[in-house]
């Protein structure tokens, strides 16, 4: 079941380029699974016209939390919202992360960390590998760090953790018999795939990001190509795909 609700902002934190928003929802939070997303109408005008999709970062009772990176017109409008404002949200949308009985490695690039806080509540004691450009792009992790067995950070400029990328971190691990969950920019996911191709017995799932229209399978605007040249929809077939199910 999907819901369209007017949701009140109950908490707002701006942290460099990130925005944490917490909403009170009627049904969306209660029915959400890790990996699902919501599609938000950022204002009542038609600029921007379309809703903006965001991975669900966390839920607690009837509250829904989102981690949002400032990117364009849509996210800019959200940065301007105040506590007490109501936003039109539809969700929960899309599929969820499959839960695999193996040691989990979460691979996150930038705002791609968003779905893993929620997932770490279900799959505790996973290893988090997190790559950012610099320490300014490192959102506050302390509330969640206990859900991960270990957190390793890489930054491109070396301002936090290891100097390098999340791929450098990942390549240090033997991935056989593990399950990898990855979310981040497409070049990062392609680099993860390159590593996975050399591993036997690996299972991996990506949460992918695309341009999206409606978010519930109607406009067919979020097509993703499969290796056989067919198309799947990120909104209803995804956003979680097995790593070899889609071409990125």
């Amino acid at each position, binding site marked *: 079941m999907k819901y369209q609700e007017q949701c009140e902002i109950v908490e707002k934190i701006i942290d460099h380029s990130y925005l944490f928003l917490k909403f009170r929802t009627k049904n969306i939070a209660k029915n959400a699974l890790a990996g699902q997303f919501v599609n938000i109408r950022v204002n009542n005008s038609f600029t921007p*016209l379309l809703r903006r999709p965001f991975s669900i970062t966390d839920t607690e009772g009837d509250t829904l939390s989102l981690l949002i990176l400032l990117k364009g017109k849509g996210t800019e409008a959200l940065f301007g919202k105040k506590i007490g404002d109501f936003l039109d949200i539809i969700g929960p949308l899309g599929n969820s992360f499959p839960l695999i009985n193996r040691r989990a490695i979460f691979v996150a690039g930038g705002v791609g960390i968003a779905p893993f806080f929620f997932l770490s509540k279900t799959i505790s004691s996973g290893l988090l590998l997190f790559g950012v450009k610099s320490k300014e792009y490192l959102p506050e992790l302390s509330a969640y760090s206990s859900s991960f067995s270990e957190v390793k950070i890489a930054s491109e400029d070396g301002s936090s953790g290891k100097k390098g990328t999340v791929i450098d971190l990942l390549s240090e691990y033997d991935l056989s018999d593990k399950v990898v969950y990855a979310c981040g920019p497409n070049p990062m996911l392609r680099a993860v795939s390159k590593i996975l191709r050399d591993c036997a017995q690996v299972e991996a799932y990506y949460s992918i990001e695309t341009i999206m229209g409606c978010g519930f*399978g109607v406009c*067919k*605007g979020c097509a993703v190509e499969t290796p056989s040249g067919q198309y799947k929809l990120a909104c209803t077939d995804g956003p979680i795909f097995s790593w070899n199910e889609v071409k990125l």
Partner: protein
Amino acid sequence: MKAPLKIGSLSFRNRVLTASGTFGMGKEFSDFLDYSQLGGITLKTITKNPRQGNPPPRILETPYGLLNSIGLENEGFQKVYQDLKKNDYLRQYDTNVIFSLAGDSVEDYVEMARFFCEIEGIAMLELNLSCPNVHEGGATFDSNPENVKRIVEETAKTVSKPFTVKFSPSQDFVKNSRIAEYSGAHAITISNTFLGMAIHAKTKTFVFKNKTAGYSGPAVKPMALANVYRAAQAVKIPVIASGGISSAEDASEFLIAGASFISIGTLNFVDPGLAGKIAKEIE
């Protein structure tokens, strides 16, 4: 000004419909909308053969508008027909279900219309003569008035349910509307999306593989209003209007321009509950 709440012999609860291509195959909005609030719902156009659609990107937002180059992704006539034969889920909807179809030839339209008329849950057909982004360069059936005449005449002879004919605004839709009327159509739909394009200036490339795309959303409303007015002046059969309708006020404007029914299109993506709200407000 009150036009009858009828198309052919089919009665409608009210004047609010949804537009093809923005409402899926009917199931997708059931969590958001009580269909019994609507006059009717129009399903996604089904083509003779399955189409896997165009490669991404398929949509691009513009100021107050949307460009799309979906490529009529659908499972094709045979599959959809067989599935409906087995399970006519459309029967459960307490509204008029309008089934949209498009062929590759005049004969396809007539054949598909005949088959889909057998399905009890389908109340009415829409012959989509206007999809701009499947054929290269945007050429469509309605670019040739002879096609319009033959498709409508043959369909009228063959089918027992009322049908509307959907036109492109890029063709001579006034002339096409007249042809459709005297060839036996029960309504006309004005219109499909406008012809648009997007280019990346930096890389000097087209955004969409097919170069052109369908343009819709609030931005096209003034053009759509003028087109609906012109078509409504030309024919006596009901005009179904669509083009950027986002409120009950917009809907009223189209009714004043001469439409008998209005379709909510692109705004279904933005506010999936909108059609119901508009239906309540314009009562």
